């Protein structure tokens, strides 16, 4: 008897749990819907970046050839077998772009994560702690800030010889955090004097909790915006270093593709596809990230007066003005 009751009880529990799960999933979907609804930059940017990410993730399935193998005669114009043509060395451009996306995006995203982690750590610490800590961290930030970034990268990359993508990732991550840190520091300083921080201190919250729970959520839009900005920048720099031949030219990335297109003077010989395809891939990815950046601003800053209800406001305002005979 007891067992029976137990089993009924557990069944109830599992029903409840599955109900909870359904609710949770519904919640997630409604959040996603709320984000995209009436937010065209988010829709366009989201679609584009999804396409790029899918292409990168499913490269082995989608690619028609091995990107590192000579599969055809050089510089074949786009045709049925080679959708986007072939390179000077007879490699399939379409497959290379897909595999290149993996490398380029990995470098850009990891560099962005490294840079933003450093920026948040340095910015929030110096902004919240103040005093000597702030002085030293701010000095460090300034030192990194005055370094001309790209020349430094070029010198380092040249000094280290042709370097792999891992080194480039670290170089980009370590050199592109200071402006983010400056912005986050000043924002933290503005927030830390607000009354809710003071009341958190009075309630006896630890410094770590104040930083993580009270301050960081207020910085989400800046951190995320900075992250996307850094990703775009890192992607560009990776390609830039690649074009200059300072990256590893044997790896397939959008940068190295452009390098080979450049060295084989693809544009002079009329093989525009070798140059245009990776360049367009870079532009589309950068553009979609920028669009997402814009849309995040709209959502994360509730004070920004945008959104579907503003259309209604405009309509009502027009009607009211008409009634008053102003229009």
């Amino acid at each position, binding site marked *: 008897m007891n067992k029976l009751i137990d089993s009924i009880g557990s069944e109830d529990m599992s029903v409840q749990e599955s109900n909870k799960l359904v609710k949770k999933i519904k919640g997630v979907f409604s959040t996603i819907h709320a984000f995209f609804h009436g937010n065209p930059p988010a829709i366009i940017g989201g679609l584009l970046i999804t396409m790029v990410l899918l292409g990168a993730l499913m490269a082995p399935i989608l690619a028609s050839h091995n990107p590192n193998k000579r599969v055809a005669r050089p510089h074949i114009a786009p045709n049925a077998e080679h959708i986007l043509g072939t390179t000077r060395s007879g490699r399939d451009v379409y497959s290379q772009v897909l595999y290149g996306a993996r490398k380029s995006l990995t470098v850009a995203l990891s560099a962005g994560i490294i840079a933003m982690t450093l920026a948040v750590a340095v910015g929030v610490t110096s902004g919240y702690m103040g005093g000597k800590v702030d002085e030293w961290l701010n000095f460090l930030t300034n030192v990194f800030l005055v370094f001309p970034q790209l020349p430094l990268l070029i010198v380092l990359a040249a000094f280290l010889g042709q370097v792999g993508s891992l080194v480039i990732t670290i170089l980009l991550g370590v050199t592109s955090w200071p402006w983010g840190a400056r912005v986050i520091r000043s924002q933290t300083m503005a927030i830390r004097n607000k009354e809710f921080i003071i009341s958190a201190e009075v309630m006896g919250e630890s410094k770590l909790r104040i930083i993580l729970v009270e301050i960081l959520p207020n910085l989400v839009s800046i951190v995320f915006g900075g992250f996307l900005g850094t990703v775009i920048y890192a992607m560009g720099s990776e390609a830039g270093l690649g074009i200059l031949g300072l990256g590893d030219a044997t790896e397939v990335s959008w940068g190295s593709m452009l390098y080979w297109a450049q060295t084989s003077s693809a544009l002079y010989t009329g093989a525009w596809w070798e140059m245009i395809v990776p360049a367009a891939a870079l532009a589309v990815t950068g553009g979609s990230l920028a669009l997402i950046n814009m849309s995040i601003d709209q959502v994360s800053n509730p004070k920004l*007066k945008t*959104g*579907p*209800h*503003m259309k*209604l*406001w405009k309509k*009502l*305002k027009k*009607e*009211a003005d008409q*009634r*008053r*005979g*102003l229009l």
Partner: protein
Amino acid sequence: MKDVLLEINNLCVDYVSPNGVARAVNNVSLSIAPGETLGIAGESGCGKSTLAFAISRLHKAPALISEGEILYKDCDVLKMSDKELRDYRWNDVSIVFQSAMNSLNPVITIGEQLLDVIIAHKKISYKEAHQKAVELLSIVGIHGDRMASFPHQLSGGMRQRVVIAIALALEPKLIIMDEPTTALDVVVEREILNELYDLKTKFGFSILFISHDLSLMGEIADRIGVMYAGNLIEIGDAETVFGKPSHPYTQGLVASFPTIHGPKERLYGIPGNPVDLLRIPEGCNFQDRCTQCMAECKKHEPELIKLNDRHQAACHRL
């Protein structure tokens, strides 16, 4: 009424929010005579400040003055061009905000902020303007030497007085005071109000005084209007509204604070919370909290009924 300075007819102000349109001021009509003090009372969120903002047309999106007119000397404020509006603001109507002490710029001296107003609106030399500013400060009881002080060097009460001095700078016909003394202690409040009344007898301006402090209002206002959920539910002479309120809500407000004289009595507040402006019930807005609610109240919205020449209330009971 023949003698009218400002007349508001059927004013409606909406807030367009993602969850729907909230009507913060609903069909409010009132008028202010020259030299009169009209008090507007009501609890938080009933539309008092929204009304004050509407009068000087300060509303920005997502707020919208959807209907009605605001006639200042028979000229509709809502139809004014930008230039007319600039002239109207501060020359004719000035406003003291709720957190008045924060309306001073922290990095500019109070003297400069006073001069700003005078020079922007009047064609006088800097020297004359300076003289005028010193005069204004001494009117509100601050020594002219204080012209070079920054706002943080003054106490809250002094800052408030500076703001009032700025509001008086152009001798406007109407001053809107949006809870000007809420942040001050009673001693300073009394001092400032006394000064204000001396100035009022001297210059003869009208005051639209917005506050939730009904007892203060009973003392200083000539007439009192009571607002609830965007509606003006009772308006009349101060003694009538304060002494013999007709609307159940006003009765509740008056019964919510103790009298100094007389025996100690149990205080009765008004139960419940203000209505959600996005979910306004059919009929009277006050029905859920009203002690005298009847069937009629759930069907039709009551309109202002004239009880006598100077007293109106909106309730089906009357």
